[in-house]
């Protein structure tokens, strides 16, 4: 019989990453015991509460090309294999066990690929983020006429790790139908589609009263009567549409004296997807090209703690989500959970989440004027903002409540463990 509670092995390149919150929920609400294998760890203020209390973080080292900050495009899979091997090496050395079920995410790097060499019977659920199409979605549409040949080739080959994982006996999991639809038809039916949800408790606050409260964001007071327009991304990059946001914010600041634009996130572009800006500080470059109309009213707060994110989303009057078509950001779901009215740029993944006019506003991706007019309309109409925000919060409670989302995932994990378990797992 499987152990009760279950012993979970998580593998992800960084902690807490995406699975950290999932593991935390499973530990806290279901009593799981979890070993979280990762190569790097984020700042402590991002660690979930159960870290060290049922959720044990184990770091593995990587060798070979994985030690290099970036590698030629042809060596991407090799880099990922170094991560997968690194995870296996520490598993083999520490031999945690018994392992009832494995939860993995390669995120373009190492994965659970070699976990079966250690625990051949443990079922694996693998989170798949994104399957690259050579010339579509993310930034490819924008770069259509200037895509470097090697970049296209990288996109054509970057799915290798995902394909290997998909053939490694895992149960594939992804968080939206749009993401599932990107994968080759041969694999789509296998997917478990379930968003990992938002912790709604973090976004509960006093009801919004447009511009009337005394508010502070990261210690900075928002002047009474001001309207806050927000943008959040780990790095203000082109993929998430920081350039679009900047253009909009300048227009709003010029048109309305009461608008303050707040940007959370900072640092150089880490995603290889933006081949033109990888490693560069896109935020700074964008500000150089499109200087703020009023620097005092564009607050660039940099990387902040999750509490500050929640603080902003609880108080923002308009959250802008100008992302290029890509995996929907956590901030989009968090904004909805906080009851913030969202203005998003049209894209298939956005339409799966937002219902235009009811739970958000969607603007054509190629029409900045329309976006500006929509934003100005929303800023001028507190009732509509309120209604849309409440619609978003209702959808969030219905579809993106972490307790509900992860209950389904836990049901799947429990079921897999029960079905597959027979004598002790752990070791060859």
């Amino acid at each position, binding site marked *: 019989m499987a152990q009760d509670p279950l012993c979970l092995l998580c593998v992800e390149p960084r902690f807490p990453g995406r699975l950290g919150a999932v593991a935390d929920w499973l530990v806290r609400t279901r009593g799981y015991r979890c070993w979280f294998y990762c190569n790097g760890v984020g700042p402590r203020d991002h660690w979930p509460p159960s870290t060290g209390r049922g959720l044990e973080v184990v770091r593995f080292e990587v060798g070979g090309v994985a030690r290099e900050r970036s590698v030629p495009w042809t060596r991407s899979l090799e880099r990922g*294999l170094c991560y997968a091997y690194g995870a296996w090496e520490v598993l083999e050395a520490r031999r945690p066990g018994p392992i009832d079920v494995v939860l993995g995410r390669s995120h373009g790097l190492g994965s659970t*690929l070699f976990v079966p060499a250690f625990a051949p019977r443990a079922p694996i659920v693998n989170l798949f983020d994104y399957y690259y199409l050579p010339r579509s979605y993310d930034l490819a549409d924008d770069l259509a006429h200037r895509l470097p040949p090697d970049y296209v080739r990288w996109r054509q080959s970057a799915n290798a790790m995902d394909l*290997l994982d998909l053939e490694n006996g895992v149960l594939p999991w992804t968080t939206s139908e749009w993401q599932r639809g990107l994968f080759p038809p041969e694999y789509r039916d296998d997917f478990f589609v379930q968003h990992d949800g938002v912790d709604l408790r973090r976004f509960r606050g006093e009801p919004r009263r447009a511009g009337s409260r005394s508010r502070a964001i990261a210690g900075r007071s928002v002047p009474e009567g001001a309207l806050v327009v927000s943008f959040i991304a780990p790095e203000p990059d082109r993929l998430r549409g920081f350039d679009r946001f900047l253009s909009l914010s300048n227009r709003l600041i010029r048109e309305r004296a009461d608008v303050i634009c707040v940007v959370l996130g900072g640092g150089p572009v880490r995603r290889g997807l933006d081949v033109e800006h990888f490693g560069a500080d896109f935020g700074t470059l964008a500000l150089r090209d499109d200087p703020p109309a009023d620097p005092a009213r564009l607050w660039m707060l940099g990387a902040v703690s999750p509490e500050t994110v929640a603080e902003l989303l609880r108080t923002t009057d308009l959250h802008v989500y100008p992302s290029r078509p890509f995996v929907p950001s956590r901030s989009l779901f968090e904004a909805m959970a906080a009851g913030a009215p969202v203005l998003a740029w049209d894209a298939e993944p956005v339409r799966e989440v937002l219902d235009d006019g009811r739970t958000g506003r969607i603007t054509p991706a190629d029409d900045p004027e329309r976006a500006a007019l929509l934003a100005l309309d929303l800023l001028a109409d507190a009732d509509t903002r309120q209604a849309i925000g409440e619609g978003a919060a209702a959808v969030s409670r219905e579809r993106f409540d972490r307790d509900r989302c992860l209950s389904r995932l836990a049901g799947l994990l429990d079921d897999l463990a029960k079905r597959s378990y027979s004598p002790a797992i752990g070791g060859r």
Partner: protein
Amino acid sequence: MDVLFIHQAFPAQFGRLALELARRYGWRCRFLVESLSACPTPSRSMLETLEIHQVPVDPPRPRGGLPWPQVFGGWLEQCSSYRSAFDRLGLRSDLVVAHGGQGAPIAFLREAVSAPIVNYCEYYFPTRFADLTYRVDLPPAEVAPFYPRCINAPTLIALQNADAGYSPTRFQRDSFPERYHPKIEVHFDGIDTELYRPQPAGELILPDGRRIGPGERVVTFVARGLESMRGFDLFVAVASRIARERSDVVFVCAGSEITYYGWDNHHTGGASSFRSWAMERLDAPADRFAFLGHIEPEALAAVLSRSDLHLFPTVPFVPSWSFFNAMACARVVIGAEVAPVLEVIDPGRTGLVAPLFDTDRWAELALEVLARPSEFEPIGRAAADLIRERYSLDACVPDLRDYFERVASGRPPDS
């Protein structure tokens, strides 16, 4: 019909097939390859009939291959070289037929080619207890748990970039994940039964000048490499036992000393080759063996024609074409009791089988065949009939022509 064949080497799997398509149906067959094989070398008629374009490979690959984590990167570089050559040469065709494994890269051709791409689906490596990991009697190689989990990356990318695929045998098709089976048909590519045919046994003169006269019995073993995956050491064990029982048997082995598959060098403890390791470990009577190295098809046909018994102790893996060749020559073949062999051999009718690791059983069967050859002659004849009817060029080339035409025209399989 204008077909572009893509492979790392020429003639390899496609050379003879293309020659037949050109000769029989007037098809224009062009090749994009890296190198011309040293053995078998391209025939004169191939070079005269087929258009061969060579792809410059940069950088040259190291001898002994790349370490396993780098294989995919090496393949991608190869893919880029092929794409550049394709663009430079402007090779438009009605159909592209390409090897879909590491040996012939099509990944970056998808966008450049308007014609359908057919993938030659040679083999998909399972994660365990098959091919590379089947020899549980040998010390496990350190890389065994990892290599099979990542070596299929080029194959998967190629499958995603192809419109259709075919495997020569059902076993090879079935090695692929089931989800891809609807995309992969089974079409064998044809044995040259003019060359490999039943012939009266004559005197065999070996490359070292040794003459094998009518009074001697010949037991043959043929593989690209004399390695563990093809059961060379098991052959040596059986041969040693036969040698003890009969003094009139010569063991003729064709194949190089190189290990092409697997990690024989990991467990040979510094021996110069798996062949030397196996011969020494089993204390085999070296003077009873003849090692021919790689030989040209004509020489192989001569050896197989003179064989009294052909042994094929392979692990479950792509069947050697020499196995078919031996059967085409009406030889009695004892094969390992594994799926790829059982797909071809009907035990007791078109050949004999024995459990791979049961060398006593192999020796017992072999001694029976050698002792009473006339009793087993019908098996050899039935094997030759089978090859002629189902696996010969005459049987297979029209089938492949129909398949290629169907894919080129975009028709579904059952139309």
